[in-house]
């Protein structure tokens, strides 16, 4: 969706503000939000793409005015309600008023380290041959889906070149809404900065994205 998350190339946000000696978390509640989001994701009730879709569907003004973990928390609460894991009354009360819904898995301390060390790979066997090869000229499609997508606005309609073919991966656009993993070939596509930003762009600069095959047309 053309939501507030799609920030590449936006102006007016001011300088980047590094924080020397920054702690991993800035408050106790941030730790709990982070860990709850991880643990609830582990239950398998939704997937990573669904979490991202929920976060970017917050109203733009709210998204931009919120801190990172506030966004995570709002999205987590919405996800729990939308999935039927709890009711609005229960969330307001902070206690269970109805029997729990079944979940596929529960993250326990003993399995945390091995499960996170193994990771959750999202590469999949391809459904067919790759359409593009190394060096191919491609154009990022002009598309404006209202649902989740990982094709940023700033490359749409722009011409680039395939620099790597990574294999087939879970396709976020359908996976986010649980319409299937639909593995799609994934490429590194490089764009000249001038193609994206015009003659004022940094000379010789380039921007690469990781682009799923359905995002690309031959140039």
């Amino acid at each position: 969706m053309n939501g507030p998350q799609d920030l590449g190339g936006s102006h007016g946000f001011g300088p980047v503000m590094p924080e020397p000696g920054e702690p991993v978390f800035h408050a106790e509640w941030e730790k709990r939000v982070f860990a709850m989001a991880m643990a609830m994701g582990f239950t398998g009730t939704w997937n990573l793409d669904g979490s991202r879709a929920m976060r970017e569907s917050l109203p733009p003004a709210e998204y931009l005015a919120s801190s990172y973990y506030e966004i995570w928390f709002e999205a987590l609460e919405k996800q729990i309600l939308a999935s039927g894991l709890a009711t609005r009354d229960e969330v307001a009360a902070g206690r269970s008023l109805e029997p729990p819904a079944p979940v596929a898995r529960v993250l326990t301390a003993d399995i945390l380290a091995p499960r996170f060390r193994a990771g959750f790979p999202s590469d999949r066997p391809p459904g067919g041959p790759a359409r593009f090869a190394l060096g191919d000229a491609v154009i990022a499609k002009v598309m404006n889906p209202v649902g989740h997508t990982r094709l940023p606005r700033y490359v749409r309609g722009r011409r680039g070149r395939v620099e790597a073919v990574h294999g087939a991966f879970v396709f976020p656009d359908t996976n986010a809404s649980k319409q299937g993993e639909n593995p799609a070939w994934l490429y590194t596509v490089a764009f000249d900065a001038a193609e994206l930003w015009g003659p004022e762009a940094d000379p010789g600069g380039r921007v690469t994205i990781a682009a799923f095959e359905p995002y690309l047309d031959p140039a």
Partner: protein
Amino acid sequence: MTHDHDHAHGSGHGHHHGHGSDLTPVEARVKALESLLVEKGYIVPAALDALVEMYETKVGPHLGARVVARAWVDPTYRDRLLADATPAIAELGIGGRGGEHMVVVANTPDTHNMVVCTLCSCYPWPVLGLPPVWYKAPAYRARAVIDPRGVLADFGVGLPETTRITVWDSTAETRFMVLPMRPAGTEGFPEEALAALVTRDSMIGTGLPLSPGSEIPA
């Protein structure tokens, strides 16, 4: 222990304390949600504590620094790392969630690399830990792709005009780490001394490694 809230009001939100509690609204809501989810049996507090501990104390940029130092001293390792990063990083016992599909890109005198996620906050957790606030905030995500040289200036980094910049936007599950150039004057340094020169930002591409003499462990 981690359930005792520490009165740190962190991000400066929620200034109103209500209902006779000293919790801010967001703290109260987070606490209520955790209680509910625990009671439902969806989450286990001990696992949450362990998650926090893992990313506060175990997983962090010291791991990526080991990878960089190894690549600096071992040319064949460097080749493997640049050709297929995930198994090369796993050789050092490093990997996992958020780094299942690693790509390492090497800086050269001609090309500087910088990593961003314009759409959210994708970041190579197993080698760098959780991302800093600035990496997740709009200013960096907006500007890295359109004005990388200006962003570098915000970090106090100036590159020669002849150095071209490639920005890697992490739009899928591939995760990027920069292999910075080995600093001059480090010939013969052992790996541990080299790793101490590798900063987090130098592996994101918003910084450069430290110079020898400024950060050599005793």
